[in-house]
């Protein structure tokens, strides 16, 4: 039997506002428990929410970047349920009238093709606090610092047909929210997380199969693993003669499996109703235009521009625009080096390689664009060869200074003095009479051997072009 996988994602992006969505408390991460929770966040008797306008602006920005409809009159609703880290006993969210309605987004697949994924809606809501189950000896600690942090919940259509597509979509949104500067995208701190709705059906079927919801998956790797595990599980259930049960399942990254959390029957009745403490959010054309003009260049447009403006390969442009910080880094390097192609090679090849090897983020790269540009300038003006430049890069990565000081300190300056190069060539030729004979007998590729020997003897510092030229002359003598 041929199965088709159907996936829809609900992504929670924490909006990068300074203060909370309904209070003036700070949203900064990592403070001591309950130090960033004011009376409103604690849900004290009598307190009232006041909407943070910045959160609205960010949601609209997201909507406009994805050709979504912006709801002119959206409404906050209360989602009622009891949990100790939910101070009011309800979460303020949006239900029937979300601020962002239908839109779509293009994702690129591994085979180079692209696909459109529908966005159903995106709504504003407040985050809950955290329950801390360790260190309290049979009790639970509550930290309400996160309570009231603004979230944008982005709901996709069930348009994805594999775990890889789901990951591509999630990565695209992840990049986009950072481009828009509405979310820091930090998955370790939970600023960007997702739930996946997964079902399977026989290829060709019109009806969707029964879905399960996989909760709180906080890395790209886990999304792929969780979905793949769940797909296999559902197929096994059906092929074993059973039926998939509609339920919420939790992914356990340690065991690599999903397990049932609560069934449809146990699902909460959230008793949504419009929050009487908040007025509907009214948005007019002028407001939408005022947000539209603040939209930055988006990834697809930037990729196009990199190809035409810098003459680099489309796949390199795609890599360089995969995040806004990387694209900015690249453009700063181009500016510093005045060589777009070399800059692309060095950013993609050396820099990303080194970051990846050390498991570092671009933001903590020890090499700044101006420094990388400094290396490229010295390649271009023949101060160093490309090979030596890699040594300079490594030294720079270790924090040994800028290109010129490293070249100076390590004596890596390329030798361009013909006399000095000739001297080395003479020594090499004198030590290899047999190879000269071979060359003269017609084995022209021996030239490479001689170049290598000369470069080695010069510790890589001889100018390779000059070495080539002088060697040819000498061998003809």
């Amino acid at each position, binding site marked *: 039997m041929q199965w088709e996988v159907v996936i829809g994602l609900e992504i929670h992006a924490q909006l990068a506002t300074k203060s909370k969505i309904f209070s003036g408390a700070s949203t900064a991460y990592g403070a001591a428990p309950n130090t960033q929770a004011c*009376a409103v966040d*604690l*849900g*004290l*008797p*009598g*307190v*009232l*929410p*006041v*909407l943070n306008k910045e959160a609205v602006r960010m949601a609209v920005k997201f909507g406009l970047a994805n050709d979504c409809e912006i709801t002119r009159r959206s409404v906050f609703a*209360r989602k*009622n349920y*009891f949990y*100790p880290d939910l*101070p*009011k*006993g*309800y979460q303020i969210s949006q239900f029937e009238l979300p601020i962002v309605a239908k839109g779509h987004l293009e994702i690129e697949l591994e085979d180079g093709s692209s696909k459109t994924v529908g966005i159903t809606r995106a709504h504003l809501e407040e985050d809950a606090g955290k329950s801390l189950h360790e260190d309290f000896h049979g009790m*639970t600690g*509550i930290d309400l610092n996160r309570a009231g942090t603004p979230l944008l919940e982005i709901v996709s259509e069930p348009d994805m047909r594999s775990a890889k597509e789901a990951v591509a979509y999630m990565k695209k949104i992840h990049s986009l929210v950072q481009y828009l500067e509405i979310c820091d995208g930090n998955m370790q701190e939970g600023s960007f997380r997702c739930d996946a709705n997964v079902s399977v059906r026989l290829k060709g079927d019109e009806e969707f199969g029964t879905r399960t919801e996989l909760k709180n998956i906080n890395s790209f790797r886990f999304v792929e693993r969780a979905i793949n595990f769940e797909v296999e599980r559902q197929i096994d259930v059906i092929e074993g003669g059973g039926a998939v049960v509609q339920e919420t399942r939790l992914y356990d990254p340690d065991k690599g499996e999903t397990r049932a959390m609560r069934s449809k029957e146990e699902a909460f*009745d959230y*008793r*949504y*109703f419009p929050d*009487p*403490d*908040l*007025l509907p959010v009214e948005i007019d054309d002028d407001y939408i235009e005022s947000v539209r003009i603040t939209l930055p260049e988006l990834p697809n447009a930037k990729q196009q521009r990199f190809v035409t403006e810098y003459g680099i390969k489309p796949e390199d442009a795609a890599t360089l625009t995969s995040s806004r910080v990387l694209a900015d880094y690249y453009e700063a390097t181009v500016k510093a080096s005045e060589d777009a192609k070399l800059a692309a090679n060095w950013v993609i090849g050396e820099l990303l390689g080194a970051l990846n090897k050390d498991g570092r983020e671009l933001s903590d790269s020890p090499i700044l664009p101006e420094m990388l540009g400094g290396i490229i300038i010295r390649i271009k003006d023949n101060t160093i060869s490309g090979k030596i430049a890699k040594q300079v890069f490594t030294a720079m990565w270790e924090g040994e200074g800028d290109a010129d000081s490293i070249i100076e300190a390590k004596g890596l300056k390329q030798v361009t003095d013909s006399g000095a190069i000739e001297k080395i060539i003479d020594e090499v030729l004198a030590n290899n009479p047999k190879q000269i004979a071979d060359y003269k007998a017609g084995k022209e590729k021996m030239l490479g051997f001689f170049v290598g020997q000369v470069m080695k003897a010069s510790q890589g510092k001889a100018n390779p072009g000059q070495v080539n030229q002088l060697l040819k002359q000498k061998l003809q003598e």
Partner: protein
Amino acid sequence: MQNKTIAELSQSLQQGEFSSEELTRAYLDRIDKLDAQVNSYITVTADGALAAARAADEQRQAGQAGPLTGIPLAQKDIFCTEGVKTSCGSKMLDNFISPYDATVISKFKQAGAVMLGKTNMDEFAMGSSNETSFYGAVKNPWDLDAVPGGSSGGSAAVVAARLAPAATGTDTGGSIRQPAALCGITGLKPTYGRVSRYGMIAFASSLDQAGPMARTAEDCALMMNVMAGFDEKDSTSVDQAVPDYTTSLNDSIAGLKIGLPKEYFSEGLDNDVATAIEVAIAEYKKLGAEVVEISLPNTGLSVPAYYVVAPAECSSNLSRFDGVRFGHRCENPKDLTDLYKRSRGEGFGAEVKRRIMIGTYALSAGYYDAYYLKAQKVRQLISQDFKRAFEQVDVIIGPATPTVAFNLGEKTDDPVTMYLSDAYTIATNLAGLPGMSVPAGFVGKRPVGLQIIGNYFDEARLLNVAHQYQQTTDWHAQAPEAFK
């Protein structure tokens, strides 16, 4: 001293007849001696009151006194008061000392008013007789066998018994006007959004509104000058200029168009109350007002609609009382469910539980459309009734309540009859309109209240209409025998 109004006290203080400290002490003494009979205070803040009074006296000496400087007031225990127990009439909050002041409280502090204490009330403002309070029923100063009305029963009793010159109340379905009527005092529920709800413990957020309860319309105007206004901490408060409510009090009401809704004078209205209201209407005619009969055809739907909307909102508003962060927590909870069940089961009284259950049911999947949505539609209809009426008339007048105060215990076993005692006041809350109750006579020992309903933000006119009546009648000036 205790029979003076705020306006008179303000003058006496200014003329140095007595200091605020002396005045405050006199009230504290009265409370000490007399409150046991009515049970109108939950907390008396004697030390804080005397300190505030002394500060007010200094302010006056410095020549910085305003109309409310040094005036003692009682605050309904629904308003959060920093460092002072704020119980909302519930065991749930018996241990709750608020860490902050409600906006209304800080405004009175800024105006130099002195808080005598926190008044008794129906638990979480749910009740029409003040019998649901965890702190025991309040008694009507006019007749100690009668209820004072609710939920602001303590505030009404305090004013009637001369245990404070005036008090604050809140009104979700009549909770200022009904007790004001039953205790023979003057109370105003302002337009929804006129007074900040920040720090006022929510019962039904779309209906709750704070207002003054005093002996005269003039005193209500003085208090409104402090209470009213936009508050950035309350998104539902309205950013509209606040007039000086005292300046129009003496305007003539000749030519005023008064509407009498026939639905407020039909079945269910006590004959003696009807007679008193007719006498009051005759008084208005003498003052030059024109009286026309009008119809508010959806009046009969207001109680049922209210008892869906208010419980629905309260079921959600009261979820925060879960024993986790503040308030009552049960002993030795076994687990989380046990903590919730016992903390809430022990902390809330029967009426609160009843309304949480009604509201939870009304909002449940499958019932939402039939109850909550339908009730919202009824609200629209009721608002339209009033809108049409105010195209015809300036104010609407009728009885505030169908009967005078009933006996303690009389309706406690019959919630629906109890709910109907708010039949004339609830519609204005559903529409968000301002309404007043003004003393208009007695049936036996028990006072009758005349209700005046105005258009949105027309509080100044209501106060004017009430004040003019109080210039030619003296019902508002009478005091119960035991508290003279």
